[in-house]
């Protein structure tokens, strides 16, 4: 959730005219609202919604999207693609997002077949804490791409 705050707050601090934060988790929203209050940021709207459900927003209403989607687990594969598709639906411009490097080829093929252009802007490692008993290690380092999906080359 600190990642989520950094995106919304970061956008607003870096000069975005107006930011709308889409978040479904009540705890993350509480954290975010607290941060907005603390840093006196008044150009961020928060809407509680599930972006994997039919959209509460009209198409193309945002200039751009920056997001850190869930990567997907055994029971939730493909959820990162749902987030990406929704972001592209809501934005008229480019979408910036984090995805596992292991999915780079798949995402690139999928997006380019639809006429988008994918650029890997950065490669990094995310530390994922142990979530399930079956994970043997306390945390795992995952290779992650920060990508831009653009409508034109």
């Amino acid at each position: 959730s600190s990642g989520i705050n950094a995106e919304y707050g970061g956008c607003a601090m870096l000069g975005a005219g107006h930011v709308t934060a889409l978040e479904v988790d009540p705890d993350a929203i509480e954290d975010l609202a607290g941060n907005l209050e603390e840093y006196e940021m008044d150009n961020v709207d928060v809407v509680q919604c599930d972006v994997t459900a039919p959209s509460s927003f009209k198409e193309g209403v945002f200039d751009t999207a920056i997001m850190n989607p869930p990567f997907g687990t055994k029971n939730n594969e493909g959820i990162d693609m749902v987030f990406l598709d929704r972001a592209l639906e809501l934005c008229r411009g480019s979408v910036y997002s984090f995805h596992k490097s292991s999915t780079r080829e798949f995402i690139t093929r999928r997006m380019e077949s639809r006429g988008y252009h994918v650029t890997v802007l950065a490669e990094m490692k995310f530390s994922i804490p142990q979530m399930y008993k079956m994970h043997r290690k306390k945390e795992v380092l995952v290779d992650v791409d920060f990508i831009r999906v653009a409508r034109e080359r």
Partner: protein
Amino acid sequence: AVVSTQSTGHNMMKSHCKGVTNGFPLKLSSTKVDVKEVEFNADFITRMLDRLEWGALVEAARQLGVGDSLPEMAPEEGGDEELLRSVHHVLLEVEVTEGELECPETGRRFPIRNGIPDMRLNEEE
């Protein structure tokens, strides 16, 4: 309140209830409205004018009690500073902290609490 529902949000949102053909605009109602001062940026408001659905904006303004400040018909060419400042006021300075957004077709109400609309639906909806 720092967190708020503004007319910008209302202008961008629609109902996603099952079976709805035209869910825009949602009906806005408020029990608590805040007014705050936000620095005026003419360029930003001019760019927003291009993409606003004017009728929905006027309707939202009416709901917020500031409907008189905007003309009924959308300005044809950008707008003079007075108009831009009126739009700025409605868009960014008047906020709903407690209220509801209502689906125009099903009547389903989405609460706004502490300035945040909760658009979550149940499975069946």
